[in-house]
């Protein structure tokens, strides 16, 4: 396997549980125990009600393709495998994620259902990606 050159997440204390769960092939989000809303990306306080009572919950991994673009010319040479599909997925639980869709672009439609999968890009790093449901 060739060396992985793309940027990798450098987790903080707050975000580490998210990436650890991804390594276990689980999608987890913070949920605020005060206002019951889900939170992404991980934070120290709930952005909705500013409570610090955030707990990690396992999610369904289902969502819809909110928008997408086929990136032909990436901003850095690190993404040598362009074109690739960059997307915003809206999860069933509410939050949106920046992610990749792995599917032929001509099969994609805004708002189509998508489902999570886990891409073990290095032995230490797993990215959360999606494919058509």
């Amino acid at each position, binding site marked *: 396997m060739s060396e992985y050159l793309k940027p990798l997440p450098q987790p903080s204390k707050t975000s580490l549980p998210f990436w650890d769960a991804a390594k276990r092939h689980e999608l987890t989000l913070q949920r605020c125990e005060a206002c019951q809303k889900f939170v992404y990306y991980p934070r120290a306080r709930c952005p909705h009600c500013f409570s610090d009572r955030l707990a990690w919950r396992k999610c369904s991994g289902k969502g819809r393709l909110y928008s997408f*673009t086929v*990136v032909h010319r*990436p901003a850095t040479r690190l*993404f040598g495998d362009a074109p690739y599909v960059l997307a915003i997925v809206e999860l069933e639980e509410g939050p949106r994620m*920046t992610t*990749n869709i792995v599917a032929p672009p001509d099969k994609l439609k*805004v708002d189509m259902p998508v489902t999570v999968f886990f891409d073990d890009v290095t032995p230490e790093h797993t990215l959360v990606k999606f494919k058509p449901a």
Partner: protein
Amino acid sequence: MSLKRKAAAIGIGELKPYREPTDDSALDLMAAVAAEAIADAGLEKKDIDGLLVGMASADPGMIYPSAIGELFDLRPRMLNVLDIGGASGTGMIWRAAAAIDAGICNAVLCLTADLNRLGRRRPPMISLMYEFEAPYGAIGANCSYALIAQRHMALYGTTPAQMAKVAVDQRTNALANPLAFFNDIPLTIDDVLNSRYICEPLHLFEIVSPMSGGAAVVVASPEIARRSKHAPIWLLGAGEGSDRASITYAPEVTESAVKGAADTAFKMAGLQRKDIDLVCPYDCYTITVLVTLEDAGFCKKRQGGPFAMDHDLTYAGDFPCNTHGGQLSFGQPGLAGGMSHVTEGIRQLMGRGGGRQVKDARLAYVNGNGGIMSEQVGLILERAS
């Protein structure tokens, strides 16, 4: 608080954008446009008592404005770096007026310049959400605006040709602007649609080109404005707003804080959209203009595409828009790209539009946009009759 006619723009300085590498520093360019703007205002350097500056990516630093002040030997009574991306230039204008209205300053220099960094090594754009974006290849602005365009097309039926029309009409404007970078070859809708995809659905000719350059504006008190060299251009209304940094977390990607900023500005000015003679909406991409015209209330939501197609956006048309060519044809010299919309509004209202002068132009709406439509500033400028 209202800023209506509390201050006026009285002088501008601007460089023709250029792309070739030179041994200029961004600070050299700042000095050039500052000197031009102060002279254009009919003032001397010692008259400047406020400094608002955008940090040049090519010459960044800490405690920035006092370094610029020292470089020019200014004695400012207010110093600020404004860091709201492409909206920084427009944002400076109302902040200058507020400082003047508060009695803190009499003449404020609003200053932007930068160098084209293309071709040089540069770190990827860092944001607070970098950890959750960069690993997926969400780096730079092109892909984020493509996400706006894709959903705008899906929700409202906007077509690639409607987006391309913005670039085409703005190029026609640029052909009449000696300062515009792309002012030699006309553009057709087919040219735009046949240019290569950068981030689908956005083509190369729908995307700004980074340049070197600079722009400055002097904003002054009514006392100074009444004896200025050119007709003073009064600030009638201003509004500002932000609702996201990354496009992923926007409440709805096809909508923006332009709406709140424009509503505030029009309310302050006591004017309606139909009163406006020309618009200068920030245009980093074609889609930005369509969303801005919708959210600023010049057409209904979802009608941005048909509006651009059905109206003549040139200086001679029924809806003059970015008569300098917009950044798409003028060029984007860092934050000075966003100042170009301000300088063009001022130039037109002063009657200094040359071959692209909009007839009887008295009121202009200028929109500044930073990040991924993240920061929005609306300004209404007036030439008193």
